[in-house]
């Protein structure tokens, strides 16, 4: 018999998985641009109980350039977490698929297993194309998984996904308004520690590390002077130099979790 694309994408037991699970999961690629050969990698992990009654949630990590599979699935909200040996898995008891069907997407091309047959695509990614390709991905993905057409849909993520999430949400809302369709039935989104506005994000960062006592008064003043009007990513050399001084003063701490010992 000929397997459907969905059935072909079904994942059986993973290497290093020494436990049974009571949910199905699927992974594979969806082509978002036939001409250039752009394809995005996804991993759908269905809800542990009664997936048909649960919403669909798309999880996105940031970077830009970081993997939702590598971070979101494997160390944050997914059920399959990896032990320090890098080979065996354990079940995350707080996996979010207790409450929803979770779809991890690596976008844009170049992230994780997502790829393009046109190598220059890796040098021309950006906010607009990521939103457009992600919308194309969703519209094609629900053709493979029609049971999710019109299903209550949410987008959640963190960091630079503070750009991806509202931008993709806007693309979905505008697509639905233009087409009169509700295939992607977006109900809401949730962003954690996300980039929202360069100016506010910079000011808030400098105040945070100054008020917690991580940097000196002089460096706080220097940061505001050199970086206050700079983009949050890819800032000027003068701003980067000021940031370097702040990093030295903060010492060998984990900036992503300031009271956690740095990983050595």
């Amino acid at each position, binding site marked *: 018999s000929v397997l459907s694309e969905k059935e*072909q994408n079904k994942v*059986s037991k*993973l290497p*290093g998985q020494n436990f049974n699970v009571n949910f199905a999961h699927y992974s594979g690629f969806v082509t978002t641009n036939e001409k250039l050969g752009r394809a995005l*990698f996804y991993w759908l992990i269905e809800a542990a109980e009664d997936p048909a009654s649960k919403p669909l949630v798309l999880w996105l990590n940031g*970077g*830009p*350039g*970081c*993997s939702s599979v*590598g*971070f979101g699935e494997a160390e944050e*909200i997914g059920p399959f977490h990896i*032990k320090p*040996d*890098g080979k065996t*898995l354990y079940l*995350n*008891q*707080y996996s*979010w698929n207790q*409450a929803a069907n979770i779809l991890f997407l690596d976008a844009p091309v*170049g992230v*994780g*297993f997502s*790829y393009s047959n046109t190598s220059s695509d*890796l040098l021309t990614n950006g*906010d*607009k194309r990521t939103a457009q390709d992600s919308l194309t991905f969703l519209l094609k993905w629900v053709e493979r998984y029609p049971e999710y057409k019109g299903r209550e849909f*949410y987008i*959640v993520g963190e*960091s630079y996904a*503070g750009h991806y999430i*509202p*931008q993709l*949400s*806007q693309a979905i*809302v505008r697509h639905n308004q233009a087409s009169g369709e509700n295939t992607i039935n977006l109900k*809401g*989104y*949730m*962003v*954690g*520690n*996300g*980039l929202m*506005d360069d100016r*506010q*994000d910079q000011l*808030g*960062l400098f105040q*945070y590390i100054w008020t*917690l006592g991580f940097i000196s008064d002089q460096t706080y003043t220097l940061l505001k002077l050199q970086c206050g009007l700079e983009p949050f990513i890819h800032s000027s050399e003068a701003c980067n130099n000021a940031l370097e001084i702040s990093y030295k003063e903060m010492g060998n701490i*984990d*900036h*992503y*979790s*300031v009271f*956690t010992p740095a*990983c050595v």
Partner: protein
Amino acid sequence: CTEKHSKVYFNLPEVQRALHVPPEVAPSKWDTCNYVVNENWNDCASSVLDIYHELIAAGIRIWVFSGDADAVVPVTSTRYSIDALNLSTTSPYGPWYIDGQVGGWTQQYAGLNFVTVRGAGHEVPLHRPKEALALFKAFISGTPLLST
């Protein structure tokens, strides 16, 4: 350190086979972040606050949360950005609770719900998994977090 474990696991050929990644399209080295992509990012909006206004008007449920131990995009940044949205508040400011402990603080604005997660870093579910799951359940059900 968990990031290092992912870098080992997802480079295993048997894992790539299990996830239906054909060898001919697999990257020569799978990595958690692609720095070529990052360094060659073309268009980066300086602000997405205008999109928030558009989506709030469209009736989309929007929650913004922040782990308060993050020095990359800290809670102060998020507060300034929300302040710039100029939304009116619709609930009193106050803590939310989990297992009798303060999980963080929360504020409902017109069209947006703000939640902090106490002790969490940039990756909130990594360091505060139980609190993050409670937050997620509240978000998808559209119900407030426990205030007592």
